[in-house]
């Protein structure tokens, strides 16, 4: 079983600061880490490898410093790591990013056939959730998003449970296929000492757009279909009424009265 997990280096979600004047992310001093949703993708890949045998490859697209999340992936149990780095990729939207990742995965596949691709549900910086389904579209593979459970792995297929608003759907997908997973699927492990050592020694394979045979007219801020034309910090309204009372009991009674008077309950 050869599993590819897709990861992204993103700002730590509790550490995002926006310059109110420019509306831009203040990157200096902002700690970066693996997108938290990708931790579940990688953990699921490593868990499946441990159960079934095989290899976990991890791919990322990003600037030179994104190498850190690939080393972190080794510490978390990955076997081989690949970085797509090229100025041609810069500013890509999800259409272009998923295209580049699919080309990278095709190259990985040409060396060792890929059975399964796992992505996180979304990133914590762009929050789109597009990449998993879009990689599957480029690669013409079946996919399932919002996967909360791997029910069974068969010889040629995988049975998964996908979260819906009103329950879940059980699907069977033949290999190769693409899953995007939600955090309910597992609890990511703590990095082992052995893993940390391996991370230091690990070789990171670096590919440019040319290396993966990507069409540069489909990449980057100039060529991708969407663009950001404006960004701004949302306004917050302050409208609180403090509910009075000498103690919790009084406050509760006053609150219930306010809600009843307003015909809210």
């Amino acid at each position, binding site marked *: 079983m050869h599993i590819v997990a897709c990861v992204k280096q993103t700002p730590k979600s509790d550490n995002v600061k926006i310059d109110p004047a420019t509306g831009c992310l203040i990157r200096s001093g902002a700690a970066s880490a693996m997108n938290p949703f990708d931790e579940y993708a990688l953990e699921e890949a490593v868990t499946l490898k441990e159960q079934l045998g095989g290899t976990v490859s991890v791919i990322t697209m990003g600037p030179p410093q994104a190498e850190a999340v690939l080393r972190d992936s080794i510490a978390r149990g990955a076997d081989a790591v690949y970085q797509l780095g090229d100025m041609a990729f810069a500013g890509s939207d999800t259409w272009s990013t998923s295209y580049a990742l699919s080309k990278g995965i095709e190259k990985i596949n040409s060396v060792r056939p890929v059975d399964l691709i796992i992505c996180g549900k979304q990133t914590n*910086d762009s929050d*789109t959730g597009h990449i998993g389904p879009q990689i599957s579209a480029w690669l013409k593979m079946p996919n399932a998003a919002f996967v909360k459970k791997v029910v069974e792995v068969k010889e040629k297929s995988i049975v998964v449970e996908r*979260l819906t608003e009103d329950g879940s*759907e059980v699907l069977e997908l033949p290999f190769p296929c693409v899953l995007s997973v939600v955090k309910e699927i597992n609890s990511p492990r703590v990095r082992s000492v052995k893993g940390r050592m391996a991370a230091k020694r690990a070789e990171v394979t670096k590919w440019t757009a040319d290396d993966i045979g990507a069409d540069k007219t489909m990449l980057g801020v100039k060529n991708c279909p969407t663009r*950001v034309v404006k960004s701004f910090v949302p306004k917050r309204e302050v409208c609180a009424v403090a*509910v009075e009372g000498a103690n919790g009991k009084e406050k*509760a009674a006053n609150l219930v009265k306010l*809600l009843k008077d307003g015909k809210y309950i």
Partner: protein
Amino acid sequence: MKDCKNVWIFAEAQRGKLSPTALELLTAGRKLADDLGEKLCAVLLGYQVEKFARDLFEHGADVVYVCDDKALEHYLDDVYARVLADLIALYKPNKFLLPATNLGRSLSAKTAIFVGTGLTADATEVVINNEDGQLHATRPTFGGNLMATITCAHTRPEMCSLRPMSYEKAPRQAGRTGEVVKFPFDPQRHTTLAKFLEFIKSKGDGLDLSEAEIIVAGGRGVGKAEGFELLHKLADRLGGAVAASRAPVDSGWIDYRYQIGLTGRTVKPKVYIACGISGQIQHMAGMSGSDVIVAINKDAEAPIMKVANYAVQGDLYDVVPAMLEALK
């Protein structure tokens, strides 16, 4: 590109129900269509879904494209995305709004690649730019810390998924009708290797969150799984549902499906009672549209106390039992 006309919305219909998001998209889409002087069209895919066309007309659609087939009974990405891509190639819409539900997020993403166009995710506001007629879709990024307006200048349709509950449901205009256009399902083209096995209905303990008018939500301050029993009592008394912020879900006190916020679900009840929730921006992203927000928190300085309509400083374990008492 010039011959691309009309505003489309995807009317999600699964398990015999038209999603409330369809009526929200009709509100958003109607305004776009009127501003452009174009038609508003809805797309219905599924099995035995043609009956919903009338609802869509009565809520503002001019045209409803229907592809109705047993093979579309359950949502499978490839099948739905291929039908949509064929519909788009044939009828050439200008703008296309889908719901940012689990189904819509996945479907919009795959369809955009099949069609070769740009997609904006999870927008909360869509407008037509007067100068060039482009769709300007505004969406929260970085966990709601930043809003970004996104365009798709050179490809059509401009696609966008719209966050549920960002728009009111379109009002019903009884007797309003329109044109049904049937689109044939093609078993040779509209295929997938994936198989649907079964649907497992959420066990749930009462109401579906998206339909609840009153939500009692617990945060880190609940402190333990058993604490949610108290919140259930209050929810039951008020005829509402229970939800949570991220911390209790991460701690395993309650299932992920009850998580409200950027990485969970968006709700817009009449009353949202936040118990022991600090109100991080990621949580607010999922509930700030509530009509009335009540915050119960020990910390008067917690961010949620600043945005709540009614802020109760106190221990939820004192206040909630006292509320139950007061409601008797």
